[in-house]
């Protein structure tokens, strides 16, 4: 069972089961599909409809990576059927051994880095919290992951002598954001216009929307209380939320 932890709105209610998070509630890039060229329609539709099977990772590795991805790019606010697939996209890249054009001299191959890195994270979980990573509380999972983010793995693990931890972190997160922000539902979330050929844009200045784009409707929200990954910088921002209710 997937562990979940919900962000909170200004009234203190859990934000969950959203079809579309973000500040552009009625905006849909896919609704514009008919005005795209055929090749783009094909590629973007295939991304939405054809989710590749997991073939590179073992079942255990896949379960572990899924739990990690859920913290690296959490989607707890999204409805289950509006969750953007990330694990299958990473698996596909590794299964086909698709490269990004280079490997750092001090890094093993992407495949090996994933295999070793995942094993290290699980062993760190067992050592520090005496349980496999997937069984940890979300707070403990994030505590471990944040130590990788900060470049100070806690507890130390020998794999990070072999693989620079900041490079592993960048590899993993890069793959996650590439999968997430390449998805039309993520474009809708952030108000990106999406494919725009052959129509193009006519309102270039002052952030004005095209007739088929929508205005921004901002709302305040804060990350789940047990999360350590938000960027809200000042404590004041965080304090302005008074959480209550059924978290």
């Amino acid at each position: 069972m997937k562990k979940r932890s919900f962000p909170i709105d200004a009234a203190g209610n859990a934000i969950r089961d959203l079809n579309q998070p973000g500040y552009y509630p009625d905006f849909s890039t896919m609704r514009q599909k008919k005005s795209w060229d055929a090749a783009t329609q094909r590629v973007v539709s295939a991304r939405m409809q054809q989710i590749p099977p997991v073939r590179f990772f073992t079942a255990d590795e896949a379960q572990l990576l899924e739990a990690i991805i859920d913290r690296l790019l959490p989607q707890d606010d999204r409805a289950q059927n509006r969750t953007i697939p990330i694990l299958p996209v990473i698996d596909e890249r590794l299964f086909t051994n698709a490269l990004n054009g280079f490997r750092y001299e001090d890094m093993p191959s992407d495949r090996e880095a994933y295999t070793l890195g995942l094993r290290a994270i699980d062993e760190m979980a067992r050592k520090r919290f005496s349980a496999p990573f997937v069984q940890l509380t979300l707070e403990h999972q994030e505590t471990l992951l944040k130590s990788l983010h900060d470049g100070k793995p806690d507890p130390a693990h020998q794999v990070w002598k072999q693989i620079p931890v900041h490079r592993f972190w960048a590899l993993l997160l890069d793959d996650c954001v590439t999968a997430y922000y390449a998805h039309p539902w993520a474009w809708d979330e952030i108000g990106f216009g999406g494919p725009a050929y052959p129509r193009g844009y006519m309102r270039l200045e002052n952030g004005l929307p095209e007739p088929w784009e929508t205005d921004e409707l901002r709302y305040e929200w804060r990350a789940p209380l047990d999360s350590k990954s938000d960027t809200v910088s000042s404590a004041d921002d965080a304090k302005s939320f008074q959480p209550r209710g059924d978290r």
Partner: protein
Amino acid sequence: MAIFPPAQPNTHRLGPMQTLPAPMRRFPDNEPVDYCIVGAGCAGGVLVQRLARAGFRVVALEAGPFWDTEKDWVSDEKGSHELYWNDLRITGGKDPLALGSNNCGKGVGGGSVHWAAFTPRFHPSDFRIYTEDGVGTDWPMSYWDLKPYYELLEREIPVAGPAWFPWGDPHGHPYGPHPLGGVGDVLVRGCAKLGIRSVAGGPVAILSASHGDRPHCIYRGFCLQGCKVGAKASTLITHVPDAITHGAEIRARSMVSRITLRNDGRVDGVEYFDAEGREHRQLARAVIVSGYAIETPRLLLNSACPTHPHGLANSSGTLGKYLMAQAGNVVAGRFDELIRLYKAPPAHALSEEFYETDTSRDFARGFAIQTVGPLPVAFARQMMNAMGAWGWGMRRVMMDYNHWATLGVLGEILPWEDNRVELANAKDQYGLPVAKVTFNLHDNDKKLIEFGKRKVMEVMYAAGATQVVQESRYAHLVGAARMGKDPATSVVDKFGRSHDIPNLFICDGSILPTQGSANPGLTIHALAARTADYLIQQGDSIFYSSRRDQSEPGIRYDLSPPFTRFKGNPRLA
């Protein structure tokens, strides 16, 4: 009801209005062509076009595909991954360069397929930085030797921009500037507040009005993903069609593995792998390597043989050395108001106010300030590096995507011997050793980057940003097979002819001795046109003589692609 007319069957499209001239010539492998060009990118595309027009038998072997822009290209970030050179390379050193993605192309058009198409000229000072500042090295030519080619190529590809570009050798542009987008407005606003001169709407090799069989820009912001519109120049659409019309062959999916030598020490062709992995040999009377700053030295190193044990054209030992990248720090600023940075070409507005050496600063040379326009995936990566964003923080900052504007530093990093391309132990899919790239920043580079980064952050705040962050990164690879007068310290002469082998040439970004803080694309085009004029003027003597004539060939105005005539380069007399 279909909005678009049905596609014509079996036509190879190069933009919505242009098709590939058919049929294309096919030279037999075992019959020598005059010129075999390795790589059909920025330089290779111009060379093959000029040489074909002059009547030479010429084939360009290109490792990647021959793009059909309607079928192969998409208006989508992730779907454009195949435009890049994705094969393995190893990167290291104290400041390792991220390779792949937008610093190296694969396919006809090469990097010009996914360049942002900023086309500033180099400044006159760029050609003599050793004389002026005691750093780097001088070019074996001056700005004034190249200027007629800058002007000609600005008309050929053609360049849109302001009527008056005030820096370097001031000049105007054949096509008018583009309308201002949100990010360009931020650059102009910030610079204006600080009293820094800026220009907007170019110079870019993007059409602001239709040109022959190419339509104008539609401002969709997908320049780096290959311009389906056909408004942004790439040699795929500017020079290659004309080359084929005039009898050239472009042989795509042909990965050259080795340049071969005759007993008399002259090259006689190349070995290559076709799309199915079969080995072939193409005989040629002369070979021009146009594989860019990594693949060019790699091929020459991989062509080592008993008479050239350290690689071809490497008696100086400088092959692979003096590799350069430009500092490409991205400064992102968050604004209370909406920007929508995905609209309009990423290459949009710039300032070269800090380009030249300023003795009041503690470093030589300088930098430019330019707009950049990352689409969502690229922007998320920048936020990961610039802010350490992850988890809910990543989701939050990305929800504000439309509130951010991004400006880039484009800073001159000097040529250093220890920045180099060598062969790694690892092999690629053909069993060929891959390139290993080593990169270290030196003191001058670090001071320049620090100053440039701070200045651009200042501009961003002056424009009204409430939060400013920056990511350290690099752009544009050049050098590694540099040109020079002295065969002991350079690989090729000022026309790209290797010092060691009289019928082996190099023509691409790798021959640049220094790089200024201008995007290198226009300069590479201009150098290729000049080398072509030299080869044409020298005629058959290239194929049998070892005599090295260093006199200027004189520019040919009769070899340009169609639609070049009747355009002008505005300037004050």
